[in-house]
């Protein structure tokens, strides 16, 4: 790793100030992606600002309107243990990486990184979550802007996530066993006003919604409702683990399984 300083502020305001002091400052969540990246010398920050010592960014609670609120620096293990009000989300968190990774990795870090195969982007987009930063609230539909790209500005940090709790939801992950990321994963959530379907690990655009499936499932929430749909492999990731067509096929199968498990 290149040399850098590390700071551990205990208040959001202090973290924001440290990040705005220098353009070479970078926020550090649980570090489960950033630290391996630094080891490979793929990043060269002068200063890391750790967000894990900030109490106001920790924990899970229910808001008055029934939404599940999760602090940006909350670990996957804590979400798995404490997000029982949204079982599909708790189950998703319980299946990220391995236990030691879940004890460090954070939901805000995962969403800020927006890995195209990460699990949380599917939950956030599939639930229509709100990403709350130190300056604004961003709807999930506006937040994800392609692989490793988000609406976040430099120095802007995710302080909280707000998930509307759906009537029924499920996440199906087809593991890539070496990386423990999703080879493809699908999050399906049924709300009073319609169904949302988000696919991770497949598109070259990162996490995407599958609008044809949403339309069909909003009329008939059953796995049969999507059996006639055709999801194209164009624009899907092709690599040594699977072709674009294979991923498109997986996405359709997993959507059906998620609907069956949620219904």
């Amino acid at each position, binding site marked *: *790793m*290149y*040399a*850098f*300083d*590390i700071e*551990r502020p205990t208040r959001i305001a202090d973290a924001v100030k440290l990040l705005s002091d220098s353009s070479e400052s970078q926020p550090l969540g649980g*570090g*489960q992606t950033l*630290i*391996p990246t*630094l*080891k490979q010398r793929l990043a060269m920050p002068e*200063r*890391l600002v*750790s967000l*894990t*010592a900030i109490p106001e960014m920790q924990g899970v609670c229910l808001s008055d309107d029934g939404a599940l609120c999760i602090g940006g620096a909350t670990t996957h*293990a804590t979400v798995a243990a404490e997000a029982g009000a949204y079982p599909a989300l708790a189950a998703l968190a319980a299946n990220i*990486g*391995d*236990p*030691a*990774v879940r*004890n*460090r990795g954070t939901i805000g870090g995962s969403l800020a990184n927006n890995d195209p195969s990460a699990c949380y982007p599917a939950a956030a987009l599939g639930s229509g979550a709100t990403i709350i930063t130190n300056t604004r609230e961003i709807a999930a539909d506006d937040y994800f802007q392609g692989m490793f790209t988000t609406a976040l500005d430099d120095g802007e940090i995710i302080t909280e996530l707000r998930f509307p709790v759906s009537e029924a939801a499920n996440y199906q992950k087809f593991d890539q066993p070496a990386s*423990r990321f999703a080879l493809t994963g699908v999050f399906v959530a049924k709300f009073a006003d319609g169904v949302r379907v988000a696919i991770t690990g497949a598109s070259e655009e990162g996490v995407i919604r599958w609008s044809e499936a949403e339309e069909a499932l909003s009329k008939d929430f059953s796995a049969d409702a999507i059996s006639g749909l055709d999801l194209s492999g164009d624009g899907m990731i092709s690599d040594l683990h699977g072709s674009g067509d294979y991923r498109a096929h997986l996405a359709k199968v997993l959507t059906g399984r998620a609907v069956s498990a949620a219904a």
Partner: protein
Amino acid sequence: MTQVSMTVNGKTVSGEVEGRILLSDYLREDLRLTGTHIGCDTSQCGACVVHVDGKAVKACTMFAAEAEGAEVTTIEGMANPDGSLNTIQQAFQDHHGLQCGFCTPGMVMSAAALLEENAKPTEAEIRDYLEGNICRCTGYHNIVKAIMAASGQDVSAIAGE
């Protein structure tokens, strides 16, 4: 340089570290606690698992400065106060839960974290929890058996490897 202070195996330690010093480096190089092994250094293998505030973490994927104020337990802190092996360590010995031994510190630390959460895990739960601990000798069978035995379960019906 950053001043750090933490409790390691019950003793308060402190020192100055560079920001980029990993917890695994600090334990091994500064404190000379070389029981924490570095296998892959890429968060895959789990040989470096230690407990930070009671939670199993990969010491190669956390900076020493992030452990400021934390209670850290390494494999050196696992034996009984009289120096004898603790229940999990003894079970690894009794059931030949190691071959070359390189992954063993991480296996024991993960096993201890699992049994803290789940006192009587099934074989499937043990294998699931050890997802992030890799044994290059592929000696998983006896490791799983040792952990079942350490949790007080009868393993006499499970064949040896």
